[in-house]
């Protein structure tokens, strides 16, 4: 139907960088040894891994002994939360997180609740931010962990990680952050960020799927979840995924090297997209914070229409995005993140996330801006609803004003 293919689902996963793939291939066929083997072939693999660990540590401004490679972001999160919980069991029992976290955090916390731990879920405001005073007040004598994501995967809101880290260290509580979505765009210096644990994964930075990393600050004691041969400093047994790890670290380096320039480029595209879609289409609201926002995230709710139907039309035009609509979720409930921000259900069902990436061009953005109005109009023509939300207009104005002020400052 159409020639143009516009992949705007980079927050789901990214296409692997060709340099990264080249790097990875080598470790399947040339340097294929088991790093644990006592011979030259194994030693080659071990040296490569040691080197990768050093480079990953450098990106994070950490020590090599503080880097644990895992099988995914989800695994790192499980390791951080459950691993610490098991280590303090019987002494402390309270965890603090937020209602807008990734399922990997929420489901892990819910599991621990069943095992007798207490969890406080901080609410987020309409922009997706937690309240720092609320966090301070929530910390108890038996609190051992705060887990707050760096940047939200659905709406792109960026939390004040430094401040959260400061509060935690003052109160002597460990702090974990899920930085998977942040890794291509934000600073990952763990000392600057005041974090004790930080989760990253490969598939969000043009690296491989099935590889993750946990930064574990020296002195933070966790129980391993996977027992066996004692790899990864006894924290995560199992033969190391050498090709995956080598490729992940390479991808992370490239992403961090380019992050400032790439962020600047994408912020311009992002803001243009938000502004022009809102100008061309009535009754659209932006989900997430207007400025404390990932450079690649555009999350909009289109009133009177449903998200999955929009996705189907977009797909037919060669545009690939995602939705927080109930119909696209496994539970048939709309996105927990959008609801957590207090966005009405009416908006949540028509929410679409466009997540840009390094392959996104100005032409791609123009193309989306061009085809979207007709799609929405077609669906509104057959919709029985016409919500009369006066405040939608005023809210739109406020958002545009915030973006304008933000751009003027630069």
């Amino acid at each position, binding site marked *: 139907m159409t020639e143009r293919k516009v992949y705007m689902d980079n927050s789901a996963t990214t296409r692997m960088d060709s340099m990264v793939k080249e790097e990875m291939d080598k470790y399947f066929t040339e340097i294929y040894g088991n790093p644990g083997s006592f011979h030259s072939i194994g030693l080659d693999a071990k040296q490569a891994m040691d080197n990768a660990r050093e480079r990953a540590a450098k990106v994070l401004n950490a020590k090599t002994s503080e880097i644990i490679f895992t099988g995914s972001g989800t695994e790192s999160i499980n390791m951080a939360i459950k691993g610490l919980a098991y280590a303090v069991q019987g002494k402390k029992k309270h965890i603090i997180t937020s209602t807008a976290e990734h399922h990997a955090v929420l489901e892990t916390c819910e599991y621990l609740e069943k095992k007798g731990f207490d969890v406080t879920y901080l609410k987020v405001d309409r922009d997706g931010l937690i309240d720092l005073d609320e966090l301070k007040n929530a910390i108890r004598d038996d609190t051992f962990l705060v887990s707050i994501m760096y940047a939200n995967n659905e709406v792109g809101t960026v939390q004040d990680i430094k401040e959260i880290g400061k509060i935690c260290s003052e109160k002597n509580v460990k702090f974990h952050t899920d930085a998977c979505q942040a890794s291509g765009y934000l600073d990952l210096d763990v000392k600057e960020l005041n974090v004790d644990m930080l989760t990253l994964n490969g598939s969000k930075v043009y690296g491989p799927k099935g590889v993750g990393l946990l930064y574990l600050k020296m002195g933070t004691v966790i129980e391993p979840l996977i027992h066996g041969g004692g790899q990864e400093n006894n924290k995560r047994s199992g033969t190391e995924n050498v090709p995956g790890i080598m490729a992940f670290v390479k991808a992370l380096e490239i992403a961090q090297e380019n992050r400032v320039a790439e962020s600047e480029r994408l912020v311009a595209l992002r803001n243009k997209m938000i502004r022009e879609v809102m100008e061309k289409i009535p009754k659209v609201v932006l989900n997430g914070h207007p400025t404390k926002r990932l450079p690649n995230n555009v999350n909009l709710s289109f*009133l*009177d*229409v*449903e*998200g*999955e*139907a929009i996705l*189907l*039309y977009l797909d*037919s035009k060669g545009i690939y995005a995602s939705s927080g*609509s*109930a*119909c*696209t*979720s*496994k*539970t*048939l409930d*709309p996105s927990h993140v959008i609801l957590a921000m207090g966005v*009405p*259900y*009416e908006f949540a*069902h028509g929410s679409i996330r466009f997540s840009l990436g390094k392959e996104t061009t100005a032409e791609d953005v123009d193309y989306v801006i061009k085809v979207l109005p007709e799609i929405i109009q077609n669906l*509104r*023509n*057959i*919709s*029985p*609803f*016409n*919500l009369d939300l006066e405040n939608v207009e005023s809210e739109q104005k406020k958002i545009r004003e915030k973006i304008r002020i933000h751009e003027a400052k630069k």
Partner: protein
Amino acid sequence: MNELKVIQSEKDKFALAGDGVSHDGKSWFYTDVVKDHFFNPRNIFKTTQEADEYAKEADGIGLVGSPACGDGMKMFIKIDKDTEKLEEVKWQTFGCGTAIASTSAYSVMLAEGNGMTVDEALKVKPKDIADYLGGIPARKFHCSVLADKAFREAVNDYYKKTGQNEKVKTDGKKIIDNVLKITDHDIEHAVLEGAMDFEAVQKKTKVGVHDKECIPMVKNLIKEYKEKYFGED
């Protein structure tokens, strides 16, 4: 027997239980018929103004759902008063691909050719719509139920307008959970959305959390609705 033809791959059995499987592993989530009705919906209005005009002359109008619950359908019918045959079935739908395709297909099934009589049309079941579409994903089955419900509402409206009040059928709601005021409809809805056992229904509706006495009744209802819609227990 005219069995319900939801796409029955192994994956979709999981989907029935609420798994996040979003395609059949081949190319698309939806059959070609669903796609055709989604991208080329039949019996629609070109504009909302046209729908407003049509509403003035329609013999019956039915609306179910709301923007907050994620699905909404409005059906407009015109009926030949002498024969009680459906002359036209027009509609508006707020919903996903299945919801839009189901309403479109339903409108075609009812009014095409000579048109069914109202009595014939009322015998069309949600599973017939699913069959007509060549199968729909199990977890989207509630979409075809909504189309059916919107039509029933429209027919009731017609009966009221023509003074045939004795024919009006309403699905009486019954409160099951006396604390949270959860009705049999709420439980039916949860089952249609893929909650296939008590735990899943409770997670969706909170039924029986406070009112423990209703739990056996809820379990029976779940069994009933599963048989009714999915032909299993």
